[in-house]
């Protein structure tokens, strides 16, 4: 019965026991996390009804050119001739001249549909997500221009730098099956 006191056996028994415990805990954690797992992963989203268009999206994104862009919900738009998302505060003339525009990158195009209604398009290649037009449209228009995360660009970082910098709590994790919350005409 001397082998029971053999330190080597005792040590290896202890080691095996601890190893087994660790293995069980990994298995347990895997089981728990697997059970909690949902079909849809999470992606980042802006709630445009909470967003205050502070401009942090343009500067805080880890991408050199932000993944947040202005999105135009056409069904909400009033097709105004004088659009406060399009024109600067005191435009010299009401025309498409660059000096009259609010957008710092000239990312908004407009075209006449029928007098006096204009349709506004965002050129996403130029938009930097600064939200200036969103502020203008919210203040004096229907609020059809709003910021949203574009998922073809978003890296879906575990810790989103924009979410950390968002002052209004509009930047959230949402299930990936509904990645876009766009302004709707029927919501008041």
């Amino acid at each position: 019965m001397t082998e029971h006191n053999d330190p080597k056996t005792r040590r290896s028994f202890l080691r095996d026991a601890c190893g087994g415990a660790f293995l069980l805990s990994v298995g347990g954690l895997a089981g728990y996390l697997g059970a909690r797992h949902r079909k849809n992963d999470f992606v980042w989203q802006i709630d445009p009804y909470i967003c205050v268009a502070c401009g942090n999206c343009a500067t805080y994104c880890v991408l050199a050119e932000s993944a947040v862009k202005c999105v135009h919900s056409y069904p909400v738009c009033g097709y105004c001739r004088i659009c406060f998302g399009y024109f600067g505060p005191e435009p010299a003339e009401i025309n498409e001249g660059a000096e009259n525009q609010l957008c710092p990158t000239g990312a908004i195009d407009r075209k006449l549909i029928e007098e006096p209604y204009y349709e506004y398009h965002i050129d996403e290649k130029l938009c930097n997500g600064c939200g200036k037009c969103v502020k203008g449209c919210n203040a004096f228009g229907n609020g059809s221009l709003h910021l949203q995360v574009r998922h073809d660009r978003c890296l879906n970082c575990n810790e989103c730098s924009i979410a950390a910098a968002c002052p209004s709590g509009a930047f959230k994790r949402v299930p990936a099956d509904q990645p876009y919350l766009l302004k709707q005409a029927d919501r008041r």
Partner: protein
Amino acid sequence: MGRRVVLTAVVALCLGLSGRAYPLERFPPPEFTETQHQIPSPTTPEPRQDLYEYVDAVVLLAALAAASYLVLRKRNRRMVFLLMIASLVYFGFYRKGCVCSIGAIQNATLTLFDSQYAMPITATVFLLAPLLFTLFFGRTFCGAVCPLGAIQDAVVLWPVKVPRPLESSLRLLAYVYLGAGVLFAATGSAFIICRYDPFVSFFRLTGSINMLVLGVSLLVIGMFVGRPYCRFLCPYGVILRQFSRLSRRRVTITPDECIQCRLCEDACPFGAIREPTAPWPDEEYRAGKKRLALLLLAAPLIVAAAAWTGSLLWPQASRAHARVRLAERVYQEDQGDVSDTTDASNAFRATGRPTEELYAEARAVQAQFVLGGWLLGGFIGLVAVAKLLSASIRRKRTDYEADRAGCFACARCYKYCPRQRIQDDGKATVTA
């Protein structure tokens, strides 16, 4: 014409100042009866397909298997190095360092504490697969798979020896970091391990200046002190250490027997080679025993003191939670301590919610931080006691060995061993 512009502007201004919460349809969308123009809808590009994420998980498992095979079976540094570079390119530069095992600790914590959140399956694999492999094969994940380890391993130039007590003390930082990462994730404040990931700005080739400076300085330090992040900061590393202690198989410097030639003594840039121990002189042995007894008696006191300190210090960090920060700001504004307002306080006031509600929420978060502070402090105390205990115990060792916990399985030491050389030469003659 000009008058109409002014009129519209005035009407719009009045509407704007009337302050409706959702300023929708002040101007009803037109019906294009003349041109029959169809109103378009905005585009919604889809997120990255799940399929790609499963590819990441499969690549991870393959890399872990390959690393274990190359380190333990092939015993070939060059191949391990190539695999390490491949991992750096794939997980680092191609996948931009996101989904990583270190950060996944926080996802698991948030899943445990927040019923609204569930961890992606890929992140679960990234968290658990390296643990499992480490339990069987040692830290082969650190050696050849982790991109953060790889970028540091690639710049090791002239490693200096860090004295063991200093190394052990500095490693406390990693335990504090792990605890802080868990606390911040559990309270839903932030994922600080991701936020302060020093190398991710290299992987993305963009980042804030502070993080770039931190990353560059860690790499510069890493030229002289091998893998500083892995050894002194990595929160996942300290978990892997415990698993590696119990690993079934592990790195052995020699393929068969140690001939005590001491050639491997300086082989490890990470200070993970342990030399044989001399027998303890009798009086030292007795003094050591006494010290151990004292330490065991003092252990509860140390833990209690650390827990108390933690409960005082950590609540200060609750400012990392946006709600606490906002509540503090709103309180200051209401008290007249500050004259201006911030975007956050303006946004809060625009919602019209009572400030008491905000204060109550902030207090709840602070209470979580107090409890977390006690637990975290106690945890750090326990780690410190364990470190002191292990420093007071001398283990018997007859050969040169790789430290079970500290070895990153980089396979550098093999080529220093003459027994390995003999084996390799033997193989070479057989094939020749």
